[in-house]
């Protein structure tokens, strides 16, 4: 199955239960298999936007069409959401005494058998992914025994391990060392065309180097949406960061 694109029309995003300050309706298209960076200062609405894309409670009105689907996202059942999306929140809840492997297994939760066992295929997927993502040595450790950086990689791992093809990541590189950050972005880049990935982040340089598309939010407004090369013109940058440029 090809990674889906997103068509967004007249989207109104609610910010913590209030109506948006601006009645501007957002319109944008995301091409299939793109790696999209969503940047902006804290409080600009990155998290709310990501959640609205899933049809969560921040979605107020408008249409979000995923792939070739005719029905907009807000009317999807949880089952359908799980088939298409995986999501990493900014702060992840976890059970301290759970082992890493058990946590990663949650990626296959909708597909577990009657007795709660993974299929052979999924089990093999988990093992190979753990190797690729350098988590093999943690598998039997309890989550509370890991450092926050290692834990963040496990959380991210669960999201990427999920078979869904739309990946929404909210500041996935928090707590991570710079070299690990680099490796993670390279890994995300390698997911192109297999999955459509949207990343909300502060890391401008990574976005400029790896992403196909950039969305800039500020003050709950969408300031810019377009390809990275369009973004890199000075005019746009001045608009976004008036103090730097």
């Amino acid at each position, binding site marked *: 199955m090809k990674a889906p694109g997103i068509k967004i029309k007249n989207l109104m995003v609610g910010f913590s239960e209030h109506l948006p300050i601006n009645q501007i309706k957002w319109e944008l298209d995301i091409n299939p298999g793109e790696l999209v960076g969503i940047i902006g200062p804290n409080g600009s609405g990155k998290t709310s936007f990501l959640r609205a894309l*899933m049809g969560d409670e921040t979605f107020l009105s408008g249409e979000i069409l995923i792939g070739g689907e005719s029905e907009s996202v807000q009317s999807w059942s*949880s089952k359908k959401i799980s088939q298409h999306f995986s999501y990493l929140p900014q702060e*992840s809840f976890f059970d301290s005494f759970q082992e890493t492997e058990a946590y990663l297994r949650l990626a296959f939760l*909708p597909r577990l058998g009657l007795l*709660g066992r993974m299929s052979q295929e999924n089990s093999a997927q988990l093992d190979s992914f753990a190797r690729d993502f350098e988590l093999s040595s943690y598998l039997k450790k309890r989550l509370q025994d890991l450092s926050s950086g290692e834990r963040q990689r496990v959380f991210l791992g669960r999201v990427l391990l999920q078979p869904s093809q739309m990946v929404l990541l909210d500041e996935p590189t928090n707590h991570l060392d710079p070299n690990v950050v680099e490796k993670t972005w390279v890994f995300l880049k390698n997911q192109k065309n297999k999955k459509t990935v949207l990343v909300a982040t502060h890391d401008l340089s990574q976005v400029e180097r790896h992403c196909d598309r950039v969305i800039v939010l500020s003050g709950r407004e969408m300031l810019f949406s377009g390809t990275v090369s369009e973004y890199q013109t000075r005019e746009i940058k001045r608009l976004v960061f008036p103090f730097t440029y």
Partner: protein
Amino acid sequence: MNRKTLIVAALFLLVVAAVPWLGAEPISFLEMSNPTSLSYRIFWELRIPRLLVTLSLGGVLASVGSTYQSLFRNPLCEPYILGISSAVLLGVVIAETFFQQKVGTPLSFLFGFGLALMLILLLMIFTSSTKFSSDRVILFGMGANFVLSALLFLLLSFQTQSVGGGTLKWFFGFLPWVETSKAVWFGFGSLLFLILLMVFSRPIDALRLGDSVARTLGVSPLVSRNSYLVFTSLVVAITVSVSGTIGFVGLVVPQVCRIIFRPSSMRSLLLQSFLLGALFLSVADGISRSIIPPFEFPVGVITTLLGGPLFLITLWKKS
């Protein structure tokens, strides 16, 4: 089966075998061959049914506790957090104050359970609104507990005498003496509860990660959480109507299970909590009956005395 599980299983069997020999009246192993002897009658007609009820109650309370701790992502949750227990206690005190029905009469049971049902109804109305998050449910429970406890103490202040078999003692947990047939039904009921909960436990694993993430794992947060709440609340109401409030079992047993067994999923945690909870309550019951016979301490006092230090130990282990 690893070593830890074996040890706990052995402990469980030991306790189950030993506890029925403890109690107000010393019974003799040698008399057991004679069906008309006192030992035989006490053992089979009193102690064994009581053991069944104890195991069932302990298991149910611990399972509900682990469910709430996972649903609300809060290690301080326990079965009485939604205020159901206060509702039952208030109902029982109302029956006693205004209708002179002591604890144990059918009317008393009706009042207790009835008031709990009303609270569950109120809970359903609140939680069906989409604005109701996990935190709000806990706050609802706290509010209910405050109000109901206040009403409870109001009524209790009218009573200037305390009589034997009294309600106040029942507040701290009183494991009932029942006929063997009722005890067996109770046992089956609790096992059924456990099995149902285990079969439908997968959404809890997802909800543990947060409501938004749960949706991406195929779980509808509102519907699932509300179903669990209503189901477990009904069961908690039944347990409180039967035995009063027994503290700490639902709070501390799931924590201990997490530390010892490191369950990989909610399903395992439920089973482990049930067995450990049954074990814990049986031990407490045995102790309550053997310190100064024939006086029986309310079992809730013993569970608190045992559970309190255990809880502190689990906190220390967590840090």
